[in-house]
C-alpha cells in the first residue's frame, strides 16, 4: 500500500478572535430559545411575540398611527369630534378632547418603550457599576452603598418615582428623560444587590486570585475578571423590571407626574382621563390604553419568567431524553457463560 500522502502541517491562520467572540455572544442569546422546553418554552415564545409586537408598534409609530398624539383635527381642519365610538374612521374611537384613541395607544407604546429602555440603560449602568465596586472594594464603601441602596429599596416604588419626577421636572422638564430617571431611581437597588452578591462570591474564586498574582490592578480585575461572570442573572431581572417599570410609568402618568401631556402620549394619563367617561358608558377611552398596558406587561413578564426557568441553574429542569438500552446481541457478548 502506498504511503498516504500527508500534507505538511501548515500554519493555519486562526480566525480573528473578535469574530469568534461575537459568534459566541450571539449563540449565548439564542441558546435559551433552543434549550427551553415545555411550559418555559411556551412562555418564552409567547412573551417574545407579544413584546416584539408592541416594540414594533413603538418603532414604527409614525407609520402605523394614522394621526399625531395631540391631533384633534384632520389635515384640512375638520375636527374629529369628541367621544366618537370605534368605527371605520377611528378604530378605537376618540377621547373627550377629540384625540384618536388608536393613535394615542400607538404613540403611548413608543413613549413606554422609550422610557423603559432609557431607564433600563441608566439603572443597569449605575447598578452594575456600583454593585461590582461595592462587592470588590468592601469595607466602608460597601457598607455606605448598601445602606443607601437598602433605603431606596425600602421606599415604596411609586412614591419614590413621584418624588424624583417632581424634583426633576423643575430642572429637566416633563419629558421622557424625567420619567426615565424617576424610574431609574426605583430599580437601581435591584441590580446593585444582585451584582454585589455575585461579586462578593466571585471575588473569592481562584481565577481572581490568579489575576492578582499576575499583577492586575483593581480596575482590570473588576472589568475583565468580574464583570463577565457576575451579570448572569441580570437579563432575567432586567426583563421583569421592565414589566414593572411599565406599570410604574403608567402610575406616574395616572397621578399626573412624569410625562406631561404636551410632551408625549402616555397610557396612564389616558386612563386617568377616562375615569369620568366610564360612568357615562363610554368604554373605549379606558379599555384600549388599559389593554395595551396589560399586554406589554404580560409579554415582558412571560419573557422574564421563561428566561428564568431556562437559564437559572437552580430551578432549571433538564430535558430528559429517552434512552433505550438495546438487548445484548450474541456476537457482542463479552461475558463468560455462567
Amino acid at each position, binding site marked *: 500500500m502506498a504511503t498516504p500522502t500527508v500534507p505538511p502541517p501548515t500554519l493555519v491562520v486562526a480566525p480573528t478572535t473578535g469574530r469568534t467572540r461575537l459568534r459566541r455572544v450571539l449563540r449565548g442569546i439564542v441558546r435559551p430559545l433552543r434549550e427551553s422546553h415545555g411550559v418555559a418554552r411556551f412562555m418564552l415564545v409567547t412573551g417574545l411575540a407579544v413584546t416584539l409586537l408592541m416594540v414594533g408598534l413603538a418603532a414604527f409609530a409614525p407609520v402605523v398611527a394614522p394621526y399625531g398624539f395631540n391631533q384633534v383635527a384632520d389635515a384640512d381642519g375638520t375636527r374629529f369630534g369628541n367621544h366618537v365610538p370605534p368605527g371605520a374612521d377611528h378604530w378605537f374611537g376618540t377621547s373627550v378632547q377629540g384625540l384618536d384613541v388608536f393613535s394615542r395607544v400607538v404613540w403611548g407604546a413608543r413613549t413606554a418603550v422609550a422610557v423603559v429602555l432609557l431607564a433600563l440603560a441608566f439603572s443597569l449602568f449605575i447598578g452594575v457599576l456600583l454593585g461590582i465596586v461595592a462587592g470588590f472594594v468592601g469595607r466602608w464603601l460597601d457598607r455606605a452603598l448598601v445602606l443607601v441602596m437598602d433605603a431606596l429599596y425600602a421606599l415604596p416604588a411609586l412614591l419614590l418615582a413621584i418624588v424624583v419626577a417632581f424634583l426633576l421636572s423643575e430642572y429637566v422638564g416633563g419629558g421622557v428623560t424625567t420619567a426615565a430617571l424617576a424610574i431609574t431611581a426605583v430599580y437601581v437597588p435591584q441590580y446593585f444587590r444582585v451584582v454585589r452578591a455575585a461579586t462578593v462570591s466571585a471575588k473569592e474564586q481562584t481565577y481572581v486570585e490568579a489575576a492578582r498574582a499576575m499583577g492586575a490592578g483593581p480596575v482590570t480585575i473588576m472589568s475583565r475578571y468580574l464583570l463577565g461572570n457576575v451579570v448572569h442573572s441580570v437579563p432575567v431581572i432586567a426583563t421583569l423590571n421592565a414589566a414593572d417599570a411599565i406599570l410604574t410609568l403608567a402610575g406616574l402618568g395616572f397621578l399626573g407626574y412624569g410625562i406631561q401631556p404636551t410632551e408625549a402620549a402616555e397610557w396612564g394619563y389616558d386612563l386617568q382621563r377616562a375615569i369620568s367617561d366610564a360612568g357615562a358608558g363610554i368604554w373605549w377611552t379606558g379599555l384600549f390604553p388599559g389593554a395595551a398596558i396589560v399586554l406589554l406587561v404580560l409579554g415582558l413578564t412571560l419573557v422574564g419568567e421563561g428566561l428564568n426557568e431556562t437559564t437559572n441553574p437552580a430551578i432549571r429542569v433538564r430535558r*430528559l*431524553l429517552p*434512552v433505550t*438500552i438495546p438487548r*445484548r446481541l450474541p456476537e457482542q457478548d463479552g*461475558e*463468560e457463560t*455462567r
Partner: protein
Amino acid sequence: MTDPSSRSRVEVRPVRGPAAGPPPSGPVLTVRDLRVWYGTESGPVRAVDGVSFELWPGETLGLVGESGCGKSTLGRGLLGLLPAGAKVAGSARYRDTDLVTAKPREIRALRGPHLGLIFQEPLTRLNPLLRISDHFEEALRAHEPDLSDEEIRRRALEALRSMGIPPTRYRAYPHEFSGGMRQRIMIALALVLRPSFVVADEPTTALDVLVEAQIIRILADLRRNYDTALLFITHNLGIVAEACDRVAVMYAGRIVEQGPVRDVFARPQHPYTRELLRSTISLSTTGLHYIPGAPPDLVQPPSGCRFHPRCPQAMRVCRERFPRATTVGEQRVECWLHGPRELIPDGGDEPLVREEAGVVDES
C-alpha cells in the same frame, strides 16, 4: 463460577441485627451485565456498559478507576440513587431482590438495614441542624422501631466507640467536628443498622493523609468484626492495596480486570492495570510514567476493546472484536492477550499500527 477461596480468608464472626435474617450461603450481591446509560443531545452516554461481579459477605471489593470510568455511577446505580433520566439494564441481585427491577418503595425499605452508603463529603449526609444523637435516633427508630430509648443510646454510643469517638461528643452538632471525625460518624451511622452491604464512594478523598490512614485502619478492623460486605470506590490504588480483599479495575464503563488484590497488583494481567500501576507515583518511584491519550468518549466508545487506542500492546483484533472475559489464575481479565486463541482471526494478533487507529486526542 468465581472461586470461593478468592474471598477473604479472615475469620468472620458475624454480628447481626434482627433485620438481617439468616446468614446467606452465597454472595451478598450478584451483578450481571449491569448497564447504566444516560440520554443526552448527542446520544446515549454509556456510563456503565456491561459490568459483572460478585460481593461476598465480609469482604471488601475495591472498585478503582480514573474519572469518567463509571465507578461512581455504578455505586449509585446499585442503590437506586441515579438522577432521573438514567436507564438501568441487567441485574443486581441482593438476596431475593433484583435492585434493577425493584420498585422504589422496595429499595427504600432496603436502604438502611440492608444497604448502606458512605459519601465522599460527610456534610452532605449529616444534617447541620440535628445533633449527632438525633441522627442515630432517627436512623434506628425508622428501621428498628421496637428499640427502647436506652437501647438506641447504647447502640449509638457503641457504634461511635468503635470509631474512636468519645461519648462526650454524643450531643454535639456536625459542624463541631473536624472532617475526619465527621467521616467516622458517617461510617458509624451507616453501620449502626448492621447492613449486609455498604457502598463507600471515595470516603477518604477529602481527608488528610493521617486521618485517611486512621479511617482505613478502622475499615480494616471492621471487616473482621462485622459481616458487612463493602464496595469501596476510589481512584487511589494505594488505598485499595491497604484496605481491600479484591479489586475490580474499571475503564470506560467496563471492568477490565478483577481479582484478589495481591495478585492483581503483583501480576497485573490487563495492560491498563499495568499502566495505571506504573503511572502511580509512590515513595519508590524513580521515573515518571503516564498513559498517553485521554479516556474515550462514552457516547461513541472505540470499536472492539475500549482501551485499544492507548494500549501499548494492542493487536489488530483488539480494534475489531470485543475481548472475551477469561480467567487467569484467580483473576478475570477482558483482554485479547489472554483471550481464547481460537477466536482470534488470522493476522489478528499482529500489532496494531497506530496510524490506522486514528489521531488520539491528547489530554
